[in-house]
């Protein structure tokens, strides 16, 4: 890892990227997915969400991204209240739980798509796409169609598509769930590198407590029925983190603490 | 040749032994079919031992084909179509002509057309490929005529001062008059084109195998038409039931307009339905000349007066 990743306290901004106030979500079928969530996320945070299946993690992400209505409460994003009809105030990318690729575009075009909505020169686009595809280990699959990929490869295309546009806010819904350990660790390293160098804010859903501790500076632990944020745990491990961190006793303690919370 | 004689020869028959018969006309029920309906309403067909069904035609219903297929026994067609049918090898035989001359008229806006020569330069709506129009074009050397398909709608005609449309003398002039459009018309029969209208026909097969049925039908038909001439009221009421769009005035107009061509001309002397071999011959010659047909056959094959004469003798 490069030297510029070494962050200092001054470099950290303190602007709020996201602030949720008393947020609830009741779906049209009457199901309360999320209840009374208060949460503030500062610029440059890397917050992981862990919690049982169906506890409302994806729902919170969708509300933050303006993809579903907020039944009660308010969410401010970049200091502006979210309104799902509003299209201008966001600079975010989202890795959905499913890969959600456009089936009629090949891999290269799928990844390039977000760039085509910005005024970026073609050659620049090519470069960015190539770099990102390499990053997720899909070089050589540019011309393949989505249906010709394995499950994990599709997910990696989706990750590449989110990373390619260098967003200020990145929402990732279980991005590495379908990946093997090696690929996963590579992508974790890359993600941390990008996060650090681009000073973006990352919200990350995972079922892997190790992963959440390894990556984040905060872990939000959720409980189900109805979905609530039970606790937000600080991870006081310094960046850059390397494989040594994983074996540190502090690390194990944090993992144990979070796992314990999840059990109740 | 087979089994003739012993069966009911025109006398009253038991209603239980009525023989089914079917006539297909050329349009929805209207006074132009009055005599046949009169025979139906007044029980003349029944008296002749026929359980008669009259099926109205329509814009695209081809009576020639229906009768040729054996689905109906008798039908209405025009003289031209009969000649064409025979030319195509469809063995139809005319057994009476309701209209002694072509009922078609060429309608124009008032003051526009006085003679057939005046048609030059007009826009003319006629049914596609009809014989009389081919004849008129040739006979009057019309070259600058814009020909358009007649589709049953008069709106385009009314909209265009320069237009001429075909029509039935018993019908369109009345409609236009009702709408306040001032018109003139030329009778197609005045052009020199000889043709019968509403020709009643059957098949050669029928004449050969069941002449009694043909005779019975003709007996009642002739009686019906003679009856209808002076007593149209009951029949008209029936027609109106069949065709609610008919009005009294309209029927009166039609009746009046057609009396002349149904009961006038040759029919005045020779009775309803009369047909002249010379007229048929002229028609066939004309059609041949116009390349509409190329028929060499003896015209006597095309029509049969026996049944009509027998009916008049009754």
């Amino acid at each position, binding site marked *: 890892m490069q030297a510029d990743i070494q962050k200092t306290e001054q470099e950290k901004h303190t602007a709020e990227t996201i602030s949720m106030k008393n947020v609830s979500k009741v779906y049209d079928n009457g199901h309360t997915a999320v209840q*009374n969530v208060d949460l503030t996320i500062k610029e440059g945070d890397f917050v992981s969400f862990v919690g049982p299946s169906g506890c409302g993690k994806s729902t919170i992400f969708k509300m933050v991204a303006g993809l579903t209505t907020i039944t009660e409460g308010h969410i401010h994003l970049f200091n502006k209240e979210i309104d799902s009809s509003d299209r201008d105030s966001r600079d975010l990318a989202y890795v959905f739980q499913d890969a959600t690729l456009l089936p009629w575009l090949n891999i290269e075009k799928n990844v390039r798509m977000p760039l085509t909505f910005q005024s970026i020169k073609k050659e620049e686009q090519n470069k960015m796409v190539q770099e990102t595809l390499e990053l997720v280990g899909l070089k050589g699959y540019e011309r393949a169609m989505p249906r010709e990929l394995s499950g994990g490869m599709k997910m990696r295309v989706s990750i590449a598509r989110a990373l390619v546009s260098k967003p200020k806010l990145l929402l990732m819904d279980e991005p590495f769930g379908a990946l093997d350990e090696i690929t996963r660790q590579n992508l974790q390293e890359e993600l941390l590198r990008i996060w650090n160098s681009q000073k973006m804010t990352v919200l990350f859903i995972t079922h892997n407590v190790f992963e959440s501790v390894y990556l984040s*500076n905060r872990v939000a632990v959720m409980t189900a029925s109805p979905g609530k944020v039970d*606790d937000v745990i600080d991870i006081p491990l310094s960046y850059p983190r390397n494989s040594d961190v994983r074996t540190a006793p502090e690390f194990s303690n944090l993992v144990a603490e979070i796992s314990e919370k999840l059990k109740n | 040749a087979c089994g003739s004689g012993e069966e009911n020869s025109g006398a009253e028959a038991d209603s239980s032994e009525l023989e089914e018969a079917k006539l297909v006309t050329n349009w929805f029920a209207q006074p132009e079919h009055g005599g046949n309906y009169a025979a139906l309403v007044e029980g003349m067909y029944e008296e002749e031992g026929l359980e008669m069904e009259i099926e109205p035609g329509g814009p695209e219903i081809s009576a020639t084909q229906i009768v040729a297929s054996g689905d109906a026994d008798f039908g209405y067609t025009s003289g031209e179509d009969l000649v064409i049918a025979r030319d195509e090898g469809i063995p139809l035989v005319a057994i009476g002509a309701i209209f002694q001359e072509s009922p078609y008229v060429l309608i124009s806006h008032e003051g526009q057309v006085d003679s057939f020569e005046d048609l030059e330069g007009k826009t003319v709506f006629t049914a596609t490929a009809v014989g009389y129009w081919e004849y008129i074009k040739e006979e009057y050397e019309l070259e600058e005529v814009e020909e358009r398909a007649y589709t049953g709608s008069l709106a385009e005609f009314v909209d265009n001062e320069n237009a001429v449309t075909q029509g039935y003398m018993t019908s369109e002039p009345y409609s236009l008059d009702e709408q306040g459009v001032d018109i003139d018309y030329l009778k197609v029969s005045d052009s020199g084109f000889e043709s019968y209208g509403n020709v009643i026909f059957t098949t050669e097969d029928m004449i050969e195998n069941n002449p009694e049925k043909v005779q019975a039908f003709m007996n009642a038909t002739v009686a019906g038409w003679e009856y209808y001439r002076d007593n149209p009221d009951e029949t008209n009421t029936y027609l109106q039931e069949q065709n609610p769009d008919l009005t009294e005035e309209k029927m009166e107009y039609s009746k009046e307009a057609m009396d002349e061509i149904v009961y006038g001309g040759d029919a005045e002397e020779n009775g309803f339905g009369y047909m002249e071999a010379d007229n048929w011959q002229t028609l066939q010659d004309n059609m041949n000349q116009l390349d509409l047909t190329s028929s060499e056959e003896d015209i006597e094959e095309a029509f049969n007066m026996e049944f009509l004469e027998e009916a008049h003798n009754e």
Partner: protein
Amino acid sequence: MNSNVETTSIRTSGQPKAKSMSKGKSKLISVLPPLAAFIIFVGGWELLVRLLQIPHYLLPTPTAIVTAAVENAANLTTAVSVTILEAVIGFTLSVIGGVAAAILMASSKWVEKSLYPYAVILQTIPVVAIAPIIVIWFGSGMNSIVIITFLIGFFPMLSNTLIGLNATDKDMLNLMKLYKASKMKVMWRVRVPYALPYITAGLKISCTLAVIGAIVGEYIAGIGGGSGGIGYAITVSAARMETAYLFACGIAASLLGIVFFLLINMFSKWVLGSWHESELNNKD
């Protein structure tokens, strides 16, 4: 790094209320645009005809049309009911026939390749050309009209259904294969439901075509009179130059088409509403 994630509080202060419009109001809003469009359309028509002094036999005013419809109410009602009957029967046949043929063709590529061209022929052979045969085979009147209606509505059903049946998700088919489901079961349990969006799309087309079909049928094989439908009424009023009544008939046909269409729409909502994107109300 600071503790820049604030804490969360768990306030179970009653159920949150949904921010939705009252039902009555949203109903009104859904009726308003078409109503406005209607008023603009009809008003504009009346005005245009009056201002440009278009002669009534060319384009009658809406008022004249309504008057003509009222005056001929009895005739119009019979005509409409005759046409409804013909259209409904013809439509039903084309739906049954189209779906059945599509299912047959979808069961085997061979059958599809062998029969599909004849379906296209059925669709494209001009009805006028075969009208005499139809009339001879089926008699003039109802039977032939129904056949003609059937012919016109058949192909859209067939074509759409077949595409839908062939579009079934591969994974679903794999699943059925694992259950050792028979071809028929796969068809009914998976392929047909999966094709439903396409089938209802076909229904929408066919149901409006059925009205046209019935009218064309009446034109070609109708017997008119007391049992004549809208096609007959149109023929008669055209010949009589009763343009206002002609339009009344035309509009009656259109309304019939719209009613058919709305019924199919309701059916589509009912059958797809709980799962298919095109009919989902719930946008969450």
